[in-house]
């Protein structure tokens, strides 16, 4: 598997190939914790301004501007504030955070401490999916190193600021990547999302002001403090600042984690050249899901010759989304309806059951796919599936419902022939698909 930067100096991936890059010693030898020292000499407002200037957008999938999220935390409050790192990486297609935690855990910790100082939070939690047990062990060691060297605990670097950070394990629930469900889980409850507002910045963990950010968001913070927000932004585009990690998997020769400047041109070059092109030379590109399973699937015609820039705006214009940057590539051997069924099973399994549209809708989508697969397809099935999606999308409690509807909607829209053929093959009748 490849891990490398293309079109930029490695920032997120700076320590990926340095021996013992996960240790405090090597981290400091390569410039680590200098940003924290610098930040402790800055005012909290100045730090938040740098993060705003950087145009950093949350790397967990939603892409919300981080500086704005931070500015929602009330300055004056009698309550304790909390910093939470969302290390629940569970989006199908995404595996970048794993390598950040494995090989450079101090970057994330440094980012969290800077956030703590900027927002006045003295406690941080790293919520990690339970399957990443070996990473929790690595982070526990890193936190202990930071504590004994004075980066955590009382009077950090003589600044008078106190903070500690703890690891916390999840136990297998995709929904806990949604920030309010994560907070419910961190309180020891089922991972049910909460109504917003109030937003976590005002009432989050234990009903106290809380900032929840993704691992890669926190690892960006020391870079921003070191370089300055504007300089970091200018690595990317005006609206999508900095560099971004992409996880690429499926039918390419060189799957892996790639760091690209935001706005990298273009998607076709990235897949066909940087990632080595199609896994099997005689098979053509058929489909790409560019941002993790929760975004619209794209057909080859939306990519080849289209000059799609890899940033938030570019992928929206091309008919999909950046999401977490978990890019899954499929060649012509893939049956798009089988892959859509596979993702629908995922969402059915991971729906938390809290709200009816998502709980019932995801179940019905899978039931219909199964009925078709078993030979019971009906001409009206495309319309029926789209009807169900319409009853989930925008009507569920949290974005999981949208994420479940989009793969089905986009697969039927971008691959109507596949659906028609699939239905015809599986149906005793004529398999005619009505106009959708």
């Amino acid at each position, binding site marked *: 598997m490849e891990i490398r930067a293309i079109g930029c100096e490695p920032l997120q991936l700076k320590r990926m190939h340095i021996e013992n890059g996960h240790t405090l010693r090597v981290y400091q030898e390569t410039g680590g914790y200098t940003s924290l020292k610098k930040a402790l000499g800055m005012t909290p407002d100045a730090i938040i301004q740098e993060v705003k200037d950087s145009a950093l957008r949350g790397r967990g999938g939603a892409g919300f501007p981080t500086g704005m999220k931070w500015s929602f935390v009330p300055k004056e409050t009698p309550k304790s504030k909390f910093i939470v790192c969302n290390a629940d990486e569970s989006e199908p297609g995404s595996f970048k955070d794993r390598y950040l935690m494995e090989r450079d855990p101090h970057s994330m910790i440094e980012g969290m401490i800077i956030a703590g100082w900027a927002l006045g939070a003295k406690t941080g939690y790293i919520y990690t999916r339970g399957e990443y047990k070996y990473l929790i062990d690595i982070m526990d060691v890193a936190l202990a190193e930071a504590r004994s060297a004075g980066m955590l605990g009382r009077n950090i670097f003589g600044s008078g600021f106190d903070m500690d950070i703890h690891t916390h394990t999840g136990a297998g629930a995709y929904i806990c990547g949604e920030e309010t469900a994560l907070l419910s889980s961190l*309180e020891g409850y089922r991972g049910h999302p909460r109504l917003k507002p109030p937003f976590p910045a005002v009432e989050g963990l234990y009903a106290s002001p809380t900032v929840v950010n993704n691992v890669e968001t926190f690892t960006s913070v020391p870079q921003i403090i070191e370089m300055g927000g504007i300089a970091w932004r200018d690595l990317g585009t005006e609206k999508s600042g900095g560099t971004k990690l992409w996880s690429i998997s499926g039918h390419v020769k060189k799957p892996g984690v790639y760091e690209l400047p935001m706005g990298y041109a273009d998607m076709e070059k990235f897949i066909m050249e940087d990632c080595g092109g199609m896994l099997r030379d005689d098979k053509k590109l058929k489909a790409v899901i560019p941002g993790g399973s929760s975004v619209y699937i794209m057909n080859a015609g939306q990519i080849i010759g289209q000059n799609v820039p890899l940033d938030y705006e570019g992928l929206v214009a091309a008919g999909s989304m950046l999401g977490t940057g978990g890019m899954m590539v499929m060649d012509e051997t893939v049956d798009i309806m089988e892959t859509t069924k596979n993702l629908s099973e995922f969402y059915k399994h991971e729906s938390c059951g809290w709200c009816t549209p998502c709980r019932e809708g995801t179940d019905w989508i899978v039931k219909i796919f199964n009925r078709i697969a078993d030979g019971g397809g009906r001409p009206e099935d495309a319309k029926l599936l789209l009807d169900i999606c319409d009853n989930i999308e925008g009507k569920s409690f949290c974005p999981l419902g949208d994420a479940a509807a989009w793969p089905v909607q986009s697969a039927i829209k971008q691959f109507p022939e596949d659906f028609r053929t699939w239905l015809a093959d599986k149906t005793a009748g004529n398999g005619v698909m009505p106009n959708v």
Partner: protein
Amino acid sequence: MAAATPTSYTDKILYSTEVAEFSPAIIEEMRSHVAKYPADRSRSALIPLLMLVQRERGWVDNAGVNFLAKFLGLEVTDVWETATFYSMFNLRPVGRHHIQICKTLSCRIMGEPDITEHICSKLGIHPGETTEDGKFTVTMVECLGSCGTAPMMQVNFDYHEDLTIEKVDKILADAE
């Protein structure tokens, strides 16, 4: 929702009052988890402690749940409420080697069906079942964040990636 949740666990909740016992070292480890959270928020430690109970007892059973309810000052139903939500908690015994095969998209298109077929026919069980000697359980799971090294499986907490039939044979042969 945990799809593999057996429906029978409710019987055990109602009828068992057995409380598990743990060594002082394990109790100490439990306290170190509780200490991470504010004093009046010890329920936050519930999931880490359920993980610990499962590690020590092999699965999340009545006695372990009853212990945690007492230890954290919760109702038994509070503990079950949380335990039954998360797919990593085994609500019935599993084999010593819990083989969890990722079935989500990237693994699916990179060869997971062949791997699953091979493992199941070799062990003579279906997904969701345990071998008679109690050595292996096979479970199909959703994405484990190893898409670039697909297909993959996790055996207990160990990641096995870029799987081939040969690799799988070696993993099974090396399992005690």
